[in-house]
């Protein structure tokens, strides 16, 4: 896992004093290191235990998704977006769908919008649970992982109930949802939301006042706010440094303006503050999901756009027109007016953007995915240089990156 090679010592200074004998070690952390959460390789130059230089090496998970998008119909891109950020697949589905819907000028019915809000908030909780579990396990708190995955399992079952898939859901489609919400979803989501606040309290009991947790996380990984902005960092990392910026509030999409929630912030900007912000975000997400659950409007779950949205199965078997539309959409796709859109949403990790360019054909001319992890990971070197090697684990965990989102 680690390879050590001596680096040529510094040339001796010409002045008349004895040079300090220094030797630097180059440590190769990853790409199979458990705390890199995927396949990130970090090349660390060490002086003793202090990091002199850190260089992240990415690209091990590059699958050419952006190139593949150009070869598919608009509706065929949705399953690819699941695979970008595989812990927040519904956020990616949503962002892509919103971008194409904007190009098409589609009006989405309220039920679909609210369902999207509820499910993306549940996704946020599920993503934060994975983050908390793995972050804690990195630092040495084993049991938190088991608690987190207990709740996450229930969320994955809810996603399976909706879409038939636990992780690669593709539940949001251009024009609405993929399927009608299943029978009994209300009871299932409600029972989860009833239990969840107690579960968050349990994680807090294990960690918030835990002296080991505090020593490992407080004062670690601090970068001034202006520098974070300049580096392109987004999401909970900015909020932990004191900036109350959340795209759900500043540029609301999918009727987020109708929901009542707060943006948690902290001033310290260290790993502990990021932990506190994300824990509070889980509570706020549960609050939004509950509002969506209780106020869920009725009506259609997909837009009335027969040339874009697939018809119901029954209609296909009874109406000639519906059958023709179905055939045309599946075999020829639908044409999208020329133009370009940069749609941003607040994913669990920060600002997620889809830049979609249309040339008027049935396939996107260009899809660029601006993943929040890509921007956040750039801050790595700034965050750990000059610190001890043990802090690398805490700092990396606090960034909550997903390599699928970085490499695409």
């Amino acid at each position, binding site marked *: 896992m680690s390879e050590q090679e001596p680096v040529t010592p510094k040339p001796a200074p010409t002045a008349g004093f004895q040079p300090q004998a220094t030797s630097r070690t180059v440590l190769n952390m990853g790409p199979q290191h458990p705390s890199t959460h995927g396949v990130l390789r970090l090349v660390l130059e060490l002086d003793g235990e202090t990091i002199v230089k850190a260089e992240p090496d990415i690209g091990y998970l590059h699958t050419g998704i952006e190139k593949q998008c150009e070869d598919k119909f608009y509706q065929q891109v949705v399953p690819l977006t699941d695979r970008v950020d595989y812990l927040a697949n519904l956020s990616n589905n949503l962002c892509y769908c919103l971008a194409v819907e904007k190009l098409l000028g589609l009006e989405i019915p309220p039920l679909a919008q609210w369902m999207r809000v509820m499910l993306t908030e549940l996704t946020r909780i599920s993503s934060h649970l994975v983050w908390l579990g793995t972050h804690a396990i990195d630092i040495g708190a084993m049991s938190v992982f088991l608690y987190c995955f207990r709740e996450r399992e229930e969320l994955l079952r809810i996603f399976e109930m909706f879409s038939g898939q636990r992780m690669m859901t593709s539940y949001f489609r251009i024009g609405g949802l993929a399927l009608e919400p299943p029978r009994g979803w209300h009871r299932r989501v409600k029972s989860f939301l009833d239990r969840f606040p107690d579960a968050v309290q349990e994680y807090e009991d294990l960690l918030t006042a835990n002296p080991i947790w505090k020593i490992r996380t407080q004062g670690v990984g601090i970068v001034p706010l202006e520098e974070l902005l300049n580096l392109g960092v987004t999401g909970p990392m900015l909020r932990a440094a004191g900036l109350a910026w959340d795209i759900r509030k500043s540029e609301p999409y999918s009727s987020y303006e109708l929901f009542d929630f707060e943006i948690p912030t902290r001033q310290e900007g260290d790993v502990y503050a990021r932990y506190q912000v994300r824990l509070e975000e889980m509570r706020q997400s549960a609050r939004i999901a509950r509002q969506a659950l209780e106020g869920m409007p009725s009506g259609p779950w997909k837009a009335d756009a027969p040339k874009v949205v697939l018809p119901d199965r029954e209609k296909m078997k009874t109406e000639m027109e519906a059958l023709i539309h179905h055939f045309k959409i599946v075999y020829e796709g639908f044409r999208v007016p020329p133009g370009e859109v*940069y749609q941003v949403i607040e994913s669990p990790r920060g600002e997620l953007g889809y830049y979609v360019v249309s040339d008027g054909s049935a396939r996107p001319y260009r899809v660029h995915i601006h993943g929040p992890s890509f921007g956040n990971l750039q801050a790595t070197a700034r965050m750990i240089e000059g610190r001890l090697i043990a802090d690398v684990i805490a700092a990396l965990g606090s960034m909550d990156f997903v390599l699928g989102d970085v490499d695409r």
Partner: protein
Amino acid sequence: MQPESLRQEPLIQALEAVLPGSVVGAARAHGELTLTVEPARIVDVCRYLQESEGFERLSDLTAVDWHPREPRFEVVYHLHSVRRNLRLRLKCRLSGEGPEIDSVTPVWSGADWYEREVFDLFGIRFRNHPNLRRILLPEDWDGHPLRKDYPVYGPKYGYKDE
């Protein structure tokens, strides 16, 4: 040239006053403002927008290949001001022959990886970039996959020594 309706846009007027001739086109669609910028002036424009107009963030940087049209490449910058809650898109058109543009890393250090990605996948060079190497693909990869003349399927494009 820019449409009449956009002449009144304060951003364009301000840029026109400080850096005359830097904005060569403008458009507003889907509520998003796009300015086409003279490639040689991009760093000046970005620095002005950051310092005087409050665009403290570079949200995204990418490129589009319009092969076989000329100028072939568009480098697309998405700027964002958290304070003003404002987004802006800048575009620079580059020729297909040896595309080159100045790096905006002196303005936003976060542009570093984005420019490396564009260099890697499109083969556009960024002048004055501190570390212009491939970022997603292996160092010895042949070609630039997001160019439109690079096939999606077909014969294997792989490591040179295989």
